[in-house]
């Protein structure tokens, strides 16, 4: 007998129900973006059709060809950190601390602090770049003063898992803690892996999400020279997902966090349930480091539907990755059509990056939160700057005003450089 068969039989003999998955619900969320310092403010701004994209102020952009972005208000961030009693650290970490504190508090799992009791909660955070500001500072010190210029705590500040480690320590979360890094898909994968972790019974409660702070001179210069950012100087009009006249993405900084837990856990502690994650699919393009592949993306969507055990016809809303680059939006349109078939003809699609910029490793988590709110409030966000639709994007795009919906299921797509594709299926929560 194979060892795997033996283990299965052993578990069956011991009374385990094989393949019995736990339902996974969302009971808290938090966020920090240019549009606001909490989810409620961000939602209000989106529904009012406002964007957080402005001319960048945090460093001199004179030599850059793109000078706009969605910056988090530094004074407000400093105030929130002081309220939470968290010393200034790395900006990616700081924003995660703020969003995670909100999610834990929203879920009713922590009080005002600053001292917290240890709790068995896992911490799974996604990031595209990590501690960009600390790395920039460290290299500056090194180039200026060589070895003696390097701060002794550079390793813990800059290590790729700095964010999940600091969140876990700050809030005394004793479940497993680690980071997921797969570019712009990072936080969607973080949510997906957390979903699986709970569904399969490895953890009962997981704090997941993403954080990225890209606005330091070197990281932003890297993006500037990659040739994918919009050169439109008008911050209000530059980010135009699925529009015929789009010319690239606009970056943002921020963090978003969700509290996922098993349905039994949420019900036993009488938590307010905000939505349910019912499926997760992932795939790799295995083709090109930056050019997306419609086959790879469609595979991830199909995998997500299969995981949720629902048909394409049941999807009532697609929250697209929608970066507003020429290549991505056309490719994503083809992927959605490929995976949803004729159901795509009347399934509304929105993209949110025109509101708070492309949050990179935090984008999927932020957009998942808005998707949950859309299902909860029966309304879909407008696509900003969609005056001229790209005829090559054959999607049922939401127009320039919010649209009512009775959708029960939504897809959240996220596709990252490196070919990582991740898709969540979210279900509206009915009491």
């Amino acid at each position, binding site marked *: 007998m194979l060892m795997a068969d033996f283990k299965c039989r052993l578990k069956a003999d011991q009374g385990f129900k094989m393949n019995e998955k736990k339902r996974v619900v969302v009971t808290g969320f938090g966020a920090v973006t240019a549009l606001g310092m909490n989810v409620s403010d961000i939602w209000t701004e989106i529904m009012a059709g406002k964007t957080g994209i402005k001319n960048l102020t945090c460093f001199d952009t004179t030599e850059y060809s793109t000078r706009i972005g969605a910056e988090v208000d530094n004074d407000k961030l400093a105030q929130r950190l002081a309220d939470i*009693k968290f*010393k200034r650290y790395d900006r990616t970490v700081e924003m995660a601390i703020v969003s995670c504190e909100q999610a834990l508090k929203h879920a009713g799992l922590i009080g005002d602090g600053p001292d917290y009791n240890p709790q068995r909660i896992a911490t799974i955070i996604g990031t595209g770049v990590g501690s960009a500001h600390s790395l920039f500072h460290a290299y500056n010190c090194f180039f200026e003063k060589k070895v*003696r210029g390097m*701060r*002794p*705590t550079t390793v*813990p500040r800059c290590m790729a898992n700095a964010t999940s480690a600091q969140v876990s320590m700050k809030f005394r979360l004793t479940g497993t803690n680690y980071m997921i890094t797969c570019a712009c898909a990072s936080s969607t994968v973080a949510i997906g892996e957390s979903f699986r972790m709970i569904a399969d019974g490895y953890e009962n409660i997981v704090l997941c999400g993403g954080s990225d702070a890209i606005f330091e001179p070197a990281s932003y210069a890297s993006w500037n020279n990659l040739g994918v950012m919009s050169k439109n100087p008008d911050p209000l009009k530059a980010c135009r997902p699925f529009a015929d006249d789009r010319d690239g993405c606009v970056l943002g900084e921020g963090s978003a966090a969700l509290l996922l837990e098993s349905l039994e856990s949420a019900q036993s502690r009488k938590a307010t349930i905000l939505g349910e994650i019912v499926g997760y699919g992932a795939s790799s393009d295995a083709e090109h480091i930056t050019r997306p592949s419609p086959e790879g993306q469609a595979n991830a969507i199909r995998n997500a539907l299969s995981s949720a055990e629902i048909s394409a016809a049941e999807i009532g809303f697609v929250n697209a990755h929608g970066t507003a680059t020429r290549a991505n939006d056309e490719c994503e349109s083809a992927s959605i059509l490929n995976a949803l078939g004729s159901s795509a003809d009347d399934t509304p699609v929105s993209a949110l990056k025109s509101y708070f910029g492309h949050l990179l490793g935090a984008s999927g988590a932020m957009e998942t939160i808005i998707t949950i709110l859309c299902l909860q409030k029966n309304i879909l966000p407008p696509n900003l700057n969609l005056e001229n639709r790209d005829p090559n994007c054959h999607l049922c795009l939401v127009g320039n005003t919010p649209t009512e919906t009775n959708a029960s299921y939504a897809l959240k797509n996220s596709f990252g450089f490196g070919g990582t594709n991740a898709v969540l299926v979210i279900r509206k929560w009915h009491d």
Partner: protein
Amino acid sequence: MTHDEIISQLKNVMKQSSQESADWDNIGDDSSIQSLGFDSLSILDLIYDIQQEFGIEFEAEELATVRTVGELVSFLKEKGV
């Protein structure tokens, strides 16, 4: 620099590197460095920040016997601050 000037500048440096919210207005010669929120890791940052702030260089081991703020001020004076 006078003793008081060094303490005043040192307080600002320590505030930056400390992991705790200490009573910075009331620290004096007898205040223990450990009680101000410095552990084995953050003390390394404090040493780094002192070197940058006062423009001096020394090895961490040289502070092995320094326990209080007053002893630290004396040490800095010996280094020519």
